[in-house]
């Protein structure tokens, strides 16, 4: 297992310095990931519009105020992560870290809010097609929020490593892109599940 040439560890692009394709790859991955949400959304819409009895017996509808607060929290966290990136670009690492941590806290609160909502619901995963799609959509999204918070944690730790950003900051950019993605998905989800409530 030899590398015959000095310098480049095998990643190189001739003539140019070591190029990092992480962001390109990550964007491509996100485009693909969005399709699975699209599939769940269209399944939800199709099942809802063709259902004979959409809501399970005893369920009148979904409470939307708490989820609305959660939505505001999540959307704000997109704002804070954006601000964090601006501060980082200006070299204010501690400002970046604080706003980054704030974003994580907002994300964690969203998850907490989701758990509270789930525990207060009178229907379960197996309560017909309504229960199934509700928990599938919110659960899959919640999984992405949790992943985002974890990724942010990882980036936060790495921000303390000296010289971490010399080779570029694609990790931070990718994580931030992921977070915005998770936010947009939630907005669509919120409209579909909580706003579009009709019998």
């Amino acid at each position, binding site marked *: 297992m030899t*590398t015959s*040439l000095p310098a480049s560890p095998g990643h190189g692009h001739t003539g140019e310095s070591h190029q990092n394709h992480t962001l390109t790859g990550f964007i491509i991955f996100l*485009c*693909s990931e969005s399709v699975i949400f699209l599939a769940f959304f269209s*399944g939800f819409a199709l099942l809802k519009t063709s259902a004979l009895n959409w809501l399970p017996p005893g369920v009148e509808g979904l409470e939307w105020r708490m989820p609305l607060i959660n939505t505001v929290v999540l959307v704000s966290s997109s704002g804070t992560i954006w601000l964090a990136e601006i501060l980082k670009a200006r070299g204010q690492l501690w400002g970046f870290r604080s706003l980054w941590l704030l974003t994580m806290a907002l994300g964690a609160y969203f998850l907490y809010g989701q758990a509270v909502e789930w525990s207060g619901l009178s229907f379960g995963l197996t309560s017909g097609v309504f229960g199934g*799609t509700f928990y599938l959509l919110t659960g899959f999204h919640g999984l992405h929020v949790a992943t985002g918070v974890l990724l942010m944690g990882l980036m936060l730790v790495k921000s303390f490593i000296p010289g971490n950003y010399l080779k570029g900051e694609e990790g931070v950019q990718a994580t931030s892109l992921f977070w915005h993605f998770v936010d947009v998905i939630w907005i669509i989800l919120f409209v579909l599940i909580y706003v579009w409530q009709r019998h």
Partner: protein
Amino acid sequence: MTSATFPASEPKPSWTRYFSFNTDAKVIGIQYIVLSFFYFLIGGLLAMIIRGELITPAADLVDRTVYNGIYTMHGTIMLFLFIFPVLNGLNNLLIPTMIGAPDMAFPRLNAVAFWLVPIFGTLLIASFFVPGGPAYSGWWSYPPVSIQNPLGHLVSGQGLWLTAVALSGVSSIMGAVNFVTTIIRMRAPGMSWFRMPVFCWTALAAQSLQLIGLPALTGGAAMLLFDLVAGTSFYRPEGGGDPVLYQHFFWFYSHPAVYVIILPVFGVFSELFPVYSRKPLFGYVYVALASFIIVGLGLVVWVHHMFPSGVAQWMRNLFMVTTMLIAVPTGVKVFAWLGTLWRGKLRLTTPMLFCLGGLFNFVFAGITGIMLATVPVDIHVSNTYFVVGHFHYVIYGAAVMGVFAAVYHWFPKFTGRMPYEGLGKLHVLLTFVGANLNFLPMHPLGLMGMPRRVSSYDPEFAFWNVLASLGAFLLGVSIIPFLLNMVSSWVRGPKATHNPWNAIGLEWLLPSPPPEDNFGEHVPIVISRPYGYGTDQPLVENQEAIEHQLILKEASA
């Protein structure tokens, strides 16, 4: 003025690297290809049992439950453990070398994607041994029959099937991200889009389809798994679910999946016909662009698999029209190949014969495809052996023959040995005759009304079934010269030069086999279109010097 220099001597890499977590795309490529042929043999064995059962009308060879499990796993293994991995293997070998990159964009991700294959492959094979046996509802796994779970266990063959398919999806998406990023970002200097070989165009097109289509299958399959093990009702009518919804999710991916299979084969034909006709590819730009028209149209035809499922008439007409349209860019490619062959100087080597045979079978399959696209005919023949015949003509008759062509053609480059031509030609002959004998009789069977997936049939169908089974056994035999050839040439075949076929392409400017980082830092600058046969134009700057170096090295070896 630097000419390419290669290290004076490299320690010969150990064969054990093929069994390790190695990040070199060329090693991963071989791993994919060899592993997939291992599963090809298992899937083929299952096919022999199927045809053994069907050589007589009664269900007298194996129990019906066993037959259903076997035909389900035959399809599943051939698709997820053979054809998709072997094509990824070709991608790994060919994409970096054809575009002058040292490796894939994400080498470790590449290795992870490969190692997922033996993992989900083991899961799938293991499903034969769980109580209740493997999944038994066809490779489609339509609910409600697929979620009936007779034993009611949490771990069932169908559950393992769904898990394996989900992992396969993860592996494929990893690969797709890698291949697409590599093609977009790592081409050699001077290699603009329209100086890129067609194989890379079709790979880009195919992998784009994977990225767009697979998540829909994953989503639909996840919901099926929930229905199976968690008591949800996404597809259960009694809970308000819709079984046909699954079919939409399934086919939204699985139709483009067939283009994922055939597009790289189109790429192989487009690469090989010029070499073995000594002529440029006719209409290279149109061939390249047609790949993406196929991608676009391929995403909007899926309902043609569901014509009898109860979808509305307007939907059937719409998808019939979109399906017919795909014939046009496909025809552009077929005519381009004919134009390449015309007035060429043909060399009927093994790879060329596989391509010619594959083209022959593909045109036949295309015609039955047009028949299947028209709703009134499809209503009669859907879910019959007519469809089984059609898709086996495409998959075995065209795609597998294309894969064999690629293996023989690039074998010298990546192993450094020449394959034996005599065994190769025997392989072509047995394959071509066997495939036609096996799959042509399926068409009258379907027209007469024999459904597919049956473990027994009415006696009037016996004659064509006997012929089909004989063809299948011949196909089984045809693998023998292939395996013999591969093993013995790799171990003790004549050494290959850097360009035994006198072909034009960046990969042929590398030694056989190439060093770990291919061109490394000394990537040649591309100065002309590909397939410049007869133009006397060099492909890259300083081509003569590069060739000279290679020849010197071979002479001193």
